[in-house]
């Protein structure tokens, strides 16, 4: 029982990341009709927002280490600590949450620039060409990151308060053995609230209403005299922000490196297809489903029966779903069928 709960939680936080990326992907599919292979790169950029913020806050100067008496020793001390003492230390500690403030405007700007500059010209081109040009863009983005940050993963710590493990077991009365890292729990909650926010935005605002109408029949909305293109730009910006925030908060879980986006991209594409192209609920559902399946497949008990299953489970599920339910689990009729 304990192991099942732990695997379930393990799957949920990974599933949260999948769901967030897939949500943005499918939002862009559904509205703009564009297959964006650079979406994983946006996730990666988000993670590097956290890295940059951490590096920015810990810009240091060499000061004499007073604790060593025998010779002149120097240590690096961040300016923030020198200026503000303990407050500075606390700020540095919270660099990952703080970088959300940086990530939102930055990702929005990147998203709008990308849509205006590139994606817009590919509305009417074939899907193959959309895939190819965004694939090229993804390569460019990740190579730029590699140039500035190197090829190695950069560990980015979560705030010290959350670095321990949460006694999940004793909270729900299942025994002391069930513990789970705080930060992953927070990530789960964070992704759920972002997903909720996006859904609420689409469901309860006039803007969202128009966007949903555009997803259903874009030409019709255009004929009604609504400037749908401008809204699509904003939708793309939102998708970018969602991917970026998913990346920011994921940085403490997985030290970011330049190709993390590509790794997640392939998975999130599979998630989108399994959930059904253009279906937001499907993307979220499939994201969590595949995350959980993956973590259960990684259990030793399962692996001893089916060796290697943990490596292929997601793709296997995708193949089966695509063949049995061509539209995906929750795909709507008429969206991206061919």
């Amino acid at each position: 029982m304990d192991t099942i709960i732990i695997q379930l939680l393990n799957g949920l936080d990974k599933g949260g990341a999948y769901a967030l990326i897939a949500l943005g992907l499918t939002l862009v599919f559904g509205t703009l009709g564009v297959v964006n292979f650079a979406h994983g790169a946006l996730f990666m950029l988000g993670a590097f927002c956290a890295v940059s913020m951490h590096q920015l806050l810990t810009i240091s100067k060499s000061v004499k280490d007073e604790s060593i008496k025998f010779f002149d020793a120097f240590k690096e001390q961040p300016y923030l600590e020198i200026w503000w003492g303990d407050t500075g230390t606390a700020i540095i500690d919270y660099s990952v949450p703080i970088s959300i403030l940086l990530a939102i405007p930055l990702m929005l700007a990147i998203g709008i620039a990308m849509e205006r500059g590139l994606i817009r010209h590919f509305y009417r081109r074939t899907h193959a060409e959309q895939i190819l040009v965004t694939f090229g863009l993804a390569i460019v983005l990740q190579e730029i990151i590699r140039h500035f940050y190197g090829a190695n993963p950069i560990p980015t710590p979560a705030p010290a308060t959350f670095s321990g493990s949460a006694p999940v077991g004793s909270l729900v009365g299942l025994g002391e053995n069930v513990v789970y890292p705080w930060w992953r729990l927070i990530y789960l909650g964070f992704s759920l609230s972002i997903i909720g926010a996006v859904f609420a935005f689409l469901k309860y605002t006039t803007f969202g209403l128009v966007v949903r109408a555009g997803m259903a029949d874009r030409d019709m909305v255009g004929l009604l005299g609504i400037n749908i293109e401008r809204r699509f730009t904003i939708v793309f910006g939102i998708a970018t922000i969602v991917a970026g925030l998913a990346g920011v908060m994921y940085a403490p879980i997985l030290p970011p490196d330049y190709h993390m986006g590509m790794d997640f991209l392939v998975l999130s594409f599979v998630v989108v297809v399994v959930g059904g192209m253009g279906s937001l609920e499907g993307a979220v559902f499939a994201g969590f489903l595949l995350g959980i399946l993956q973590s259960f497949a990684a259990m030793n008990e399962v692996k001893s029966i089916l060796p290697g299953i943990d490596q292929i489970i997601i793709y296997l599920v995708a193949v089966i779903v695509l063949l049995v339910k061509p539209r995906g689990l929750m795909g709507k009729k008429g969206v991206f069928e061919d």
Partner: protein
Amino acid sequence: MKNEKILKSNNIPLYMVIFSVVVLTMPLWLEPIGAAYPDLLQKFAIFGIFAVGFNILFGLTGYLSFGHATFLGVGSYTAVWSFKLLTMNVLPAIIFSMVLAGIFALLIGYISLRRSGIYFSILTLAFAQMSYNLAYSVLTPITNGETGLQLSKNDPRVVDGLFVEVGQGIPSTNLFGLEMSGYQGFYFCAVLLIIAFYISLKIFNSPFGLNLRAIKSNQTRMSYTGYNTKPYLLAAFVISGMFAGLAGGLLAVTDPLAGAERMQWTASGEVVLMTILGGVGTLLGPLLGVGIIKYLENIFSSIGVKELGDFFSFVPDSMHAFVVDFSSLFVGEGWHLTLGLLFMIIVIFLPGGIMQGFDKIKNLMSKKDKE
């Protein structure tokens, strides 16, 4: 896509002779640009075969496969195993590579081709990732995991053992005694490239090729006229898979080592890039793409900051550091950045690749002539 035949049939022999001469004299005419050394020439020929095969699927039918590197990897592993178990002769190795890659292509194609468009791409991608992940993990006894499959002195080599005395060290790959390294290796690959190109030319000109192009332009109409399109697609998929297997086998022939990274989806992306860059659906385009990408890769990735400094020595001192810094983004390790940019530019402005560019120039010229 024009519906006329690409070449008139009676021109084919002439065309092939020219093509063969051009390919076989590559060591001569590539000398001035510094690309005439065996290693790079072999790569031209091998990836040429890969791209020509990929073009049969993508160029003719429009089905974009993101999993073709699987067949390349399968080919490499098969060839190395053939070297290990049977003989260092390359003929059985490449035959086995093609057969096994063909079988893989048959299985994967049979399932993937039940869908089309982007779903087909995702399905092939899923199969490719499955093969890659398995090759890294559970199949380690066959693939030797991260280290990659290598020859060793203790391999059985059953057939070789019957005829040849076991010598010192690891024997090298050979074609009935002719060692497959350096220029000999290149000529072997080049001959196979010529054969592969001839087959692709024949396919482009055959009724089968016409059927494939009809599928690309309108599959529904094609099936309304009574054609079952699936067998045609599957045949194209298997053929291009076998070409990829052959290329993989040749990679192992010239350097008997096989690693799983050859199967990663970025490797599949690379062949897509080459084909697109040259011109999808044209005969020569993919080869041009291979040549350009492999050549530039070779040049750009070898340039360091020092070479840049010398190159930009004409720039005024105040700007010098900046210019060198900026351009160092694009060379050495950053070669992929150049590749990505080049690729985006091609897709944005010349979706038909370099061959389309040639056509445009030709049209401009002929217009001028008329005036």
